[in-house]
């Protein structure tokens, strides 16, 4: 191998070079901005985690698995996984081997950005060597891999269902420019390298191209045109990158260490959140996942489009989309980069301003009389509308001979979560404080909660000293395990619905199922556990009205009917009320279902 030109430069590299310079400058400025936006504490946290060996190793592993191999996509759909990793990993390997080649054959040119990229143009083959052929083969091999990915990507635009996606994202103009230039890069590279394969050598991909049009190909003028086109495609892609979804390629490298450092979102479009926003690849997996996608009109309000509006800083749309969201957290669960859409939305909601303030000084004089008992039961506001639940809980508690007392008989203080969900976290503090003092002065050891919404806030926001907060699914399952609550197994088939705040919110999936399997047979829903579909009744959504929620509920009920259950079981009064309106089979509360197993 030797260089073809002494100067080692040709004007055609300029588009690439300019693009590369642009992207690098943009990313460095962006990096500095994001880091500066972080609070001092967060910055220190990030720096510390970078140098911790265990964390550093985790960062590297995540970068390899997420950025290059796209492990999560493989798990979701192998075809989708292959498509992404073939392009990302293949391209990465082309760059790596390009650099190795340059290092080996022309070490003095290794410092030039463009040299490894356009290696085949600048080099000439003198004679066959094993080492040379190895590189020819490797480079062609990875080119083939990338090309196969590109082909799949093109096919995906026409038939997304083939990749397990019903809907894909509507692309913006810059996304399109990025997409088409990305598609063009590799076929053009193939052709360009085909042109020079006669001079610089090649392997099974490039040689046949060269042989195909021998005369045309060996014309030096044509050669330059091909390389110009290749470089222009690269340049276009680079210039479009910061304004398109392909920004996720550099941004994810920043996001991974930030995430592993355990940072928290504190502002919807600054610091950690900004890094996440730019890492969103607009893949659109969240569109199908969103329960609101049951109606077409809501598709435009899913997370992927929210991210786009946050990027554009369109406050009106940002607020509207955020207020509509059910806050069920499913998009976060399926998201390839685990974009913390829940936290980001929360921060958007917290920034709304209201003229009518909230005052809870009336709670000061409220001092409920609560008897002494080991278990303190907090029923929650909604429970008076689902009397069967309270009834069944009391039945179960007395069957297990538990000493218990209720904290909010005849109406108590709201747990505060609905207020927090409306972005009024500050105001919710008054309720949290009041309930905390009631609970702590009760002398109980266990706080029993039957509402998934309340349970989540008790877990996340309350600091109850010496008191175990338990959802009734956990508690009754434990009582059964310990043999204190005895039930008989019947033949009824129960489909258990994971309430959003209990499942995705608090990670409780197994206890309710274990408990139910002691009284009957579990009939799985089509999508369950972390992928469970919100019932549509959520207090998370502020603007969805009654009519808008109906299709969401109907779709969710349909999901529950997957294995023809006798009963739909839920562990949240809101899901219970919402489902029972539209379900053809009986909807019962978890405690009610357990009572089926009690001896009558």
């Amino acid at each position, binding site marked *: 191998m030797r260089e073809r030109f002494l100067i080692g430069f040709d004007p055609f590299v300029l588009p690439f070079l300019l693009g590369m310079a642009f992207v690098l400058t943009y990313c460095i400025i962006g990096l500095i901005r994001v880091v500066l936006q972080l609070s001092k504490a967060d910055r220190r946290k990030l720096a510390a985690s970078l140098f911790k060996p265990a964390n550093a190793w985790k960062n590297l592993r995540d970068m390899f698995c997420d950025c290059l191999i796209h492990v999560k996509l493989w798990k979701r759909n192998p075809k989708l996984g292959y498509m992404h990793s073939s392009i990302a990993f293949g391209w990465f390997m082309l760059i790596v081997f390009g650099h190795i080649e340059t290092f080996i054959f022309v070490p003095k040119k290794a410092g030039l950005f463009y040299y490894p990229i356009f290696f085949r143009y600048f080099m000439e083959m003198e004679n066959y060597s094993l080492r040379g052929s190895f590189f020819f083969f490797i480079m062609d091999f990875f080119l083939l891999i990338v090309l196969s990915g590109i082909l799949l990507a093109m096919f995906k635009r026409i038939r997304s269902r083939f990749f397990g996606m019903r809907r894909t994202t509507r692309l913006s103009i810059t996304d399109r420019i990025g997409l088409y230039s990305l598609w063009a890069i590799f076929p053009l590279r193939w052709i360009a390298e085909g042109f020079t394969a006669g001079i610089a050598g090649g392997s099974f991909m490039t040689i046949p191209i060269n042989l195909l049009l021998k005369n045309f190909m060996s014309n030096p003028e044509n050669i330059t045109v091909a390389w110009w086109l290749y470089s222009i495609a690269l340049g276009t892609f680079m210039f479009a990158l910061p304004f398109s979804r392909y920004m996720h390629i550099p941004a994810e490298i920043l996001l991974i260490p930030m995430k592993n450092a355990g940072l928290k979102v504190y502002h919807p479009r600054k610091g950690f959140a900004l890094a996440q926003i730019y890492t969103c690849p607009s893949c659109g997996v969240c569109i199908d996942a969103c329960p609101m996608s049951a109606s077409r009109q809501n598709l435009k309000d899913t997370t992927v489009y929210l991210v786009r509006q946050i990027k554009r800083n369109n406050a009106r749309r940002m607020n509207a989309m955020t207020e509509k969201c059910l806050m069920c957290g499913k998009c976060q669960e399926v998201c390839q980069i685990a974009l913390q859409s829940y936290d980001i939305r929360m921060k958007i909601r917290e920034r709304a301003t209201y003229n009518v303030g909230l005052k809870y000084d009336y709670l000061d004089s409220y001092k409920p009389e609560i008897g002494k008992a080991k278990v303190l039961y907090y029923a929650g506001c909604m429970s008076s509308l689902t009397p069967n639940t309270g009834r069944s809980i009391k039945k179960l508690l007395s069957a297990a001979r538990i000493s218990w007392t209720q904290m909010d008989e005849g109406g108590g203080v709201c747990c505060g979560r609905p207020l927090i969900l409306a972005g009024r976290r500050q105001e919710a503090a008054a309720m949290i404080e009041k309930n905390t003092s009631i609970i702590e002065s009760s002398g109980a050891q266990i706080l029993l909660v039957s509402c998934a919404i309340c349970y989540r806030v008790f877990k996340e926001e309350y600091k109850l000293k010496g008191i175990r907060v338990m959802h009734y699914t956990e508690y009754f399952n434990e009582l059964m395990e310990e043999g204190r609550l005895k039930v008989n197994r019947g033949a009824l088939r129960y489909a258990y619905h994971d309430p959003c705040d209990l499942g995705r919110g608090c990670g409780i999936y197994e206890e309710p199922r274990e408990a139910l399997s002691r009284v009957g047979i579990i009939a799985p829903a089509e999508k369950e556990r972390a992928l469970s579909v919100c019932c549509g009744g959520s207090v998370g959504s502020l603007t969805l009205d009654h009519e808008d929620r109906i299709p969401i509920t109907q779709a969710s009920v349909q999901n529950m009917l997957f294995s023809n259950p006798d009963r739909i079981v839920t562990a949240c009064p809101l899901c219970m009320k919402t489902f*029972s309106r539209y379900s053809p089979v009986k909807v019962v509360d978890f405690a009610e279902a357990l009572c089926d197993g009690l001896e009558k």
Partner: protein
Amino acid sequence: MAKENVVVIGGGPCGIEVARNLRDLGYTPILLEQQSELGGHLRLWDRLFPEGVEARKVLKELTGDLKGVKWFTDVNIESIEKSRKGYTVNVDTGMSFQTKALVVTTGFKLFPAENKQEYGYNIYERVITNADLEQYFHTRKDPRIQNPKTIGFVHCVGSRDEKACNRQCSKVCCATAVKQASEIKELFPDAIVYCFYMDLRLFGRSYEDMYLTAQRKYGVRFIRGRVSEVSEDIDGKLFVKAEDTLLGKPMKMKLDLLVLMTGILPGDSTKQLSEMLKIQTGEDGFFTPRDTILEPCMAKDGGLFMAGTCTGPKTIPETLSEARAAAIQVHKYLSK
């Protein structure tokens, strides 16, 4: 010449009256009823507003004269085939009937009160429905009714309620509530009776008199406010929450008996037949006639007729008038 068959589906007051009139017009009506007796909901009622006529007497009048009507009880429709000649109705007993004109009188069902869990039907001891109370008026036996001192009637249970999936007014429950409130006061003169209503919709002739009597003679207390929830104490007493919207004050009151005025929903067979015959239904699930004003008894398809509460809530006299109108329409259609 043999008399022509006309199939009537649904053996409630409406179906019976259609059949009787068709017979009088010279046809052989074939009346099909799902239940084991003819009469529909009329069988479950004790007295009818406004005058308090005995429901059994009316039913006896209707069923007493069925000569010339072929009626079958305990039959379910399996399938209906439509051809150019008319309809072939196949039932589960193996029979099948040919008819050029088909009359659907599938009626209504009462809103299942347990669907509104906050009212506690089948959960609390002393919560009953309007149908339960009619039964009690007839039998005077119901363990839930033990000499109540305070009684509440909840209007609009499962009517005018988006959350019960029924936006429509059921039309007859207000009058029924006023009637039942007066009747129960007659039985328990010492009791205090409350009616919780959103709007009192007493639309018919002399219904206002019924209202006036309930106020003046029986002292029924009308409270404009919808009951939002009910709870129960250890003694089985009920606590009802509502707002007295005229006074603008929330109230929580203790009751011995609560009567839920369940509303009118399209019957299950209405849904079944709408699928079988591709009859258009409204958002509320009731059949939509060809023209709600001019042709309320005719479906879009020629030869298909409907009458009674399968096209919306109606009183008994309204139902019977519509039944006669439908019979005339059938006759006109068949004589063409």
